[in-house]
């Protein structure tokens, strides 16, 4: 049988076809990346939410209302979840305990406690943070929230929850005012075990001497809060932190 020969001309060279094929693949790449992004977002939500359901954390009861009240010039906020476990594990825990001057206690103050940091914004500009910690009080848990500026200075102090006959005095605005302007540096000389201090922290007066244990608990919570924020946020943003051990 005679083979029919190829036509003389009019072919597309094979190379052009390969080019067309690779062009098609390149056009598909952004679409594939977008799909992957969506899948990762779903997984992230799932994992983050699962993580948040572990040990009990300290969240604002009504973030929309509370952020507006605590940071009046804010227009919005973003919520970050973290823990000592996630940020640095045992090494970070050891650093925090050294700076605090005390070990983490009991079955509730552990390495995997979730911390909720509210990043505060005025339009698109970040203007500060709100962060709360749980602290064991004499008759119940104390939830101490600090309102901080971008340099780590306290501009607001809020006890969301406290169980005590004298809780009203410690939750009063007058008591909280004593903390405004203080920084981690001021607390570096505060001994959380003995309650001894110097400088600005020494000047903080206890309005309820009958509730000395809760007063000391509030101060310990404040120091812990500042250290954690320093480790989680301010050091990461390359602000130097005071590392002096407390005087005994």
């Amino acid at each position, binding site marked *: 049988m005679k083979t029919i020969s190829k036509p003389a001309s009019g072919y597309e060279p094979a190379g052009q076809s390969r080019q067309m094929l690779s062009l098609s693949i390149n056009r598909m790449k952004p679409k594939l990346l977008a799909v992957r992004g969506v899948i990762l977002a779903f997984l992230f*939500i799932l994992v983050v939410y699962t993580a948040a359901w572990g040990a009990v954390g300290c969240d604002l009861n009504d973030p929309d209302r509370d952020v507006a009240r605590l940071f009046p010039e804010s227009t919005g906020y973003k919520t970050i979840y973290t823990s000592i476990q996630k940020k640095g594990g045992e090494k970070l825990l050891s650093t925090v305990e050294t700076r605090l001057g005390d070990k983490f206690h009991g079955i509730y103050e552990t390495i995997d406690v979730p911390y909720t940091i509210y990043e505060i914004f005025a339009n698109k500009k970040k203007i500060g943070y709100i962060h709360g910690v749980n602290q064991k009080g004499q008759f*119940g848990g104390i939830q101490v929230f600090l309102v901080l500026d971008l340099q780590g200075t306290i501009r607001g102090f809020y006890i969301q929850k406290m169980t005590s*006959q004298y809780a*009203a005095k410690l939750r009063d605005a007058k008591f909280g005012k004593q903390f405004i302007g203080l920084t981690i540096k001021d607390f570096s000389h505060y001994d959380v075990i003995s309650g001894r201090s110097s400088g600005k922290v020494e000047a903080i007066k206890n309005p309820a001497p009958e509730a000395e244990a809760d007063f000391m608990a509030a101060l310990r919570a404040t120091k812990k809060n500042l250290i954690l924020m320093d480790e989680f946020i301010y050091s990461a943003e390359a602000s130097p932190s005071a590392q002096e051990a407390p005087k005994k």
Partner: protein
Amino acid sequence: MITKFQVAYKNLLRKKVRSSLTIIGIALSAWVLVSLLGFNRGYENSLNRDIDNMGFQLMIMAKGCPYEAATLMLKGGTGLRYMDESIVKDVLKEPEVDKITPILMSAVFDPNKGESGGIAAYFGVEAKSFAEMKPFLKFRQGGWFTDENSNEAVMGFEAAELEQREVGDMILMPEKNIQFKVVGILNRTGTQDDGTIFVPLKTLQKIFNKPTEITTIGIKLKKGVDSTRLEVALYRLPDVQVVSLAQVKDTIMKLISTAKVMVLSIAIIAILIAVVGVINTILTSVWERFQEIGILKTIGAMPWDIFQLIWMETLMLCVSGGILGVIFAVALSKLTDIAMRRVLPYAPGGGLVQIDLKLIIVTLIGIIFIGLISGIYPAWRAGRIRPLEAIRGEVSR
């Protein structure tokens, strides 16, 4: 050789956006359907478990609104009225009764909970009879109070966690300013007991000046007895109402059944819309390929071959959409759970959305079946195309 499956699959790839949108439509309906069926099962299972974990099968409480009473029981709130504890003797006389436990629920206002304060609730119980009613309650630390007149407390897992309490710590009852020593912390049960603070019944009666009053009697029946006679007998007691936990379950299920019917209707509408979308997509595709189908018949395709090709396309869209919808439902079941808890008046502990393999398979089969039905008309229409009409469609002589 190229199979009909491959031909059908490549046809779907011809209009990727259209095929994708159709698949997403089916996926969304499948997601709603699986989530809803998972919620139906999860809610009922969790509610059953909550009720079983109460330990009692019947409860007696002072007469009041049964709906409020039922939900308040399960939410661990306060009773509205009180009964005299002498009723206990009358109840114990009944032959069907195995065990009973009296409970006094009381609450105080705590102004130091958040911005506007909150309720702190306490259950006064007899440690011995309460523990006998709930033998599955285990302790994380410590145990029950031994002195029925002491100022001791046993805390549920979450209550202890919130207050950062361990055995040996003190708690304070707001308003009354009375201190209690924590002697026991329970393991997590997944019920309202997790958020409860238990104190001795007599102690609570003294604090609230209700020396002989209680709010509830929990009753456990002997095995195999019919509770109907007992319920009738108990109703004869003055000023009490009898709540069987089966009744509580029914009441709560009735409360949410209206919502369930509404959501089920929405799911069905979503599926119908998706089905219409599938029919539209396939029909449009058939009209677009009118000539091509005519040529397929010219080169030897029987009407049944064309029917199979088009039907396979429908099947592929429905299977893809169904699987994607199931993946959405499973992956986002936790978020669905959270959303449901925000909306429902009462949500039991445990997973509200329970999706298992059987449910997935049943739903997928349902979606495929609906898809196959919806594909019949377009496939039949395609099979009837006459090659000559198709060829003439474009070329005019």
